């Protein structure tokens, strides 16, 4: 090796420097990508939560309206005392997420309507109580937060809402 080339190579990056540099870059890239995916997933979960929340409260309003404004349902004790489930509802739409359909089905139902009677009053019942539930399992994006590797299904979520109301008139 000529003297001139040795002069050129003095102070240049050697194998160890390059390996250390590559490691640092790899850590940065992995960290950034993970943050992006984690944030994305958190956002998607939040969207699902809000969609389910409004669907659930809408379902409860409909059920309350049935009881308040329909004599048929008011007199149907069987209907009042049994759990009522809404038909399957999806939290995502087909054009969501670049056309990739991740079916996130939510199960929305209410418990039996409770007739609350306060013993110190002469009214019976004093008011009615409805308790609604929304339950679904999140899809795990990019393997983050994955609980079952085979089914690609993430954590379970649920919302419970409660409302009390009076019959009109």
């Amino acid at each position, binding site marked *: 090796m000529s003297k001139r080339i040795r002069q050129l190579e003095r102070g240049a990056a050697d194998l160890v420097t390059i390996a250390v540099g590559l490691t640092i870059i790899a850590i940065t890239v992995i960290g950034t990508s993970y943050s992006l995916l984690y944030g994305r997933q958190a956002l998607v979960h939040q969207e699902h939560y*809000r969609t389910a929340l*409004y669907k659930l409260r809408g379902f409860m*309003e409909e059920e309350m309206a*049935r009881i308040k*404004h329909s004599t048929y349902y008011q007199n149907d004790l069987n209907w009042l005392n049994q759990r009522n489930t809404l038909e399957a509802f999806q939290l995502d739409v087909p054009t969501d997420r*670049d056309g990739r359909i991740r079916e996130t089905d939510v199960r929305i139902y209410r418990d039996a309507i409770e007739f609350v009677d306060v013993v110190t009053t002469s009214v019976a019942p004093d008011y009615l109580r409805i308790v609604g539930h929304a339950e679904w399992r999140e899809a795990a994006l990019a393997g983050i937060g994955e609980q079952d590797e085979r089914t690609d299904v993430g954590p379970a979520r649920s919302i419970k809402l409660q409302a009390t109301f009076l019959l009109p008139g």
Partner: protein
Amino acid sequence: MRFLTRVLRKAGLHRSERASGFTLYQQMIQVFIGSAILLGGWAAYRDLTVQWRLANVERQMDQYAHSAMGELVNTLQWSVGAQLLSSGRNPLLRIAIGEFIGENGGLNSQEASQGHFPYLTDNYFTTNQNQAGQEHRMYGGFIQLTHNANRGILINNREPYWAGREAEQYIWRGSRLRDPVREMAAFDRRDRMTVKSFTVDFPLDRDPALANEGAGAGRMKYSVMRITLVMQYRYQTTDWTGIYGEDYIRERVYETSVCPLNHGQSIEDNPFFRQFIQSGIMG
């Protein structure tokens, strides 16, 4: 190879393995590695920014729909009735807002001193309160609810305050273009959302119990309003070198139902019910 050797020899180089400092093979490998790094870096940066834009607009859509749902539920919940002037994909709803004096501590009063109902009403009920047979104990009047695909939900033909009217919080297709010099230019004209459809309907319309309700069927049918908001965002990349796709469409559907507390027959002396529904003007 012999030709290459001859050319190198003419240039004063006797071996191709050791040209001036770097060999030809080294140069080729370095160019290959360098171009791979540049191409990969560019692709990663490009895709990261696209994903960032998509996530940002999706967050905006979600936030907007969340505000819209909350505000519309509140407004419809405290209304005393609504008239659907036109239905379909672009409904125009005339909502009667009234406050029974002292109700809810005056929280939904439009008078600033008593409450904070945020929209102007036409004071229908207030102006008629001295007419014979029209006496009532309410304030309020009508507001109009409609939407524009490129501006979102409109109340009284204006973007309501919660839609970021003052702060330009949401970027619509109908929004003014941002000044790339003085304002944040990270988002361009493609980063804009639209309302694909906004519908109001009555979910108890097909309830099997309606057939058994007799005269009360209408009351039951119109006791619940369902609002559905479909928001869409489309991002089309202009370059042809898209790696993960060139046309992104994101869509969100939000839906909820409202059974107004002040529904016509839930309360006594509902002037909207008395003057519009009972009189046969609408129903």
